[in-house]
């Protein structure tokens, strides 16, 4: 409970405020580190998940003679659920753990303290750009995940298994609603981005500055973020699609 309070104050102090010109530069640098460098793992995973969805979906749908609905099935599964959730889990493992370890090591080697003594607030200089980079990059990665996943579904469904191309795309177009499917998926992704990045930077900033402390905090980042993402996904799905 006390840690939650500390984490709240921490989030407020870091995330609120107008960035300076230098702040933008640091943010861009972190966007590269947190976002661009996560692209490969997220896109490759998206491709495989789209391909598997199409393969599994086809074997079920073909029994009902409904394989024309494959495009719609792949797209809805990705946009509503798999893209936000899996991208967030991958992001926690790839970028979240790195953020925790990096900030933790800066703390352990007194870099944060020395920054404070130079008169620079590490919350603004070190934490804020990383937080904002995480907030912004995960939703973008999620979009990439969906796009590549839908393309992967097309490769397997249309190119390999022979579903009619026109029905793959037109059924998808007819049945995916912009607000309730794409919009809700993006809201999920934004919430996950906030939670995962927050957990990652806070765990780094708050850890016990020893090598054991860093390893524990890194583990905690991945465990807490994954649980938070899956738990929140259920809650959000219940609110968005479950008619709560």
């Amino acid at each position: 409970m006390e840690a939650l309070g500390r984490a709240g104050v921490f989030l407020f102090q870091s995330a609120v405020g107008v960035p300076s010109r230098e702040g933008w530069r640091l943010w861009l640098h972190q966007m590269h580190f947190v976002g661009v460098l996560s692209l490969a793992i997220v896109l490759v995973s998206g491709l495989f998940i789209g391909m598997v969805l199409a393969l599994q979906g086809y074997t079920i749908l073909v029994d009902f003679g409904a394989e024309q609905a494959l495009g719609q099935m792949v797209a809805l599964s990705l946009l509503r659920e798999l893209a936000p959730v899996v991208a967030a889990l991958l992001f926690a493992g790839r970028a979240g753990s790195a953020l925790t370890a990096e900030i933790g090591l800066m703390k352990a080697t007194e870099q944060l303290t020395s920054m404070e003594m130079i008169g620079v607030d590490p919350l603004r200089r070190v934490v804020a750009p990383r937080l904002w980079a995480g907030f912004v990059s995960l939703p973008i990665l999620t979009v990439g995940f969906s796009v590549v996943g839908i393309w992967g579904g097309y490769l397997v469904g249309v190119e390999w298994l022979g579903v009619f191309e026109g029905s793959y795309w037109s059924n998808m177009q007819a049945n995916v609603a912009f607000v309730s499917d794409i919009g809700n998926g993006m809201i999920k992704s934004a919430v996950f981005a906030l939670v995962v990045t927050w957990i990652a930077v806070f765990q780094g900033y708050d850890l016990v500055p020893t090598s054991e402390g860093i390893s524990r905090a890194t583990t905690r980042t991945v465990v807490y973020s994954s649980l938070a993402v899956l738990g929140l996904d259920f809650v959000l799905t219940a609110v968005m699609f479950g008619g709560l």
Partner: protein
Amino acid sequence: MIDAPFIEIEDLHFSRGDHEIFRGINMTIPRGKVTAIMGPSGTGKTTLLKLIGGQLTPERGRIVIDGQDVHRLSRKALFTLRKRMGMLFQSGALFSDLDVFENVAFPLRVHTDLPDTMVRDLVLLKLQAVGLRGARHLTPAELSGGMARRVALARAVALDPELILYDEPFVGQDPISMGVLVQLIKRLNQALQLTSVVVSHDIKETLSIADYLYLIADGQVVAHGTPQTLDTNQDPRVSQFIHGEPDGPVPFHYPAEAFYRDILGEPPMTKTG
């Protein structure tokens, strides 16, 4: 005001958990002098520097730097005050993602609007002063411990502060870098009219540069004076430390139960009747 002390510490109390670190410390640190704070390891010397820098808050008492009570300042005012201080960390604490040049340039870039050419000149001047102008392109990982500390010193004086806090500047240095650091601290203090606070337990080096000394033990100031007066001080706690005697009022053994009981278990029963 020029003769007023730069730092005044009054009745300072501080604990970590149940462990009482300071029990009423009083100190006056004069302007423009080198003041050394000495004491055995674990007496909280580094903690004292962190209290002076406002990174920790005391339970009781106050620290006044140049008329400002450090722990009553707002976060913003505290950061402004810190621009007037430099601190040299035991580990150097260089930013590992920046090279030597950028480490020294860091305070200039964040606190001034100087053009790049002027930043470059200032950084090279500071690096020249610590003899590492040629090492400007190295990363912190490529520096030896002594070099890292000299770069950190150049960074600490980049903004021409009025006060420098040195945290164990001599620990783990070979004799040559030790000599270099001693000379640098002394020279910087004279050239820049700084107020320096050196926290250390290296007696010889510290005595050679300090104008005034405080010796702390058991959470209190046990003695203070000029290096000469401390050298001849008769207090057993002072002479044990100054002359490096292994046993004395500061015991060699960490508190433990009696040795024979620890080894043999219960003492043998004495026969009766």
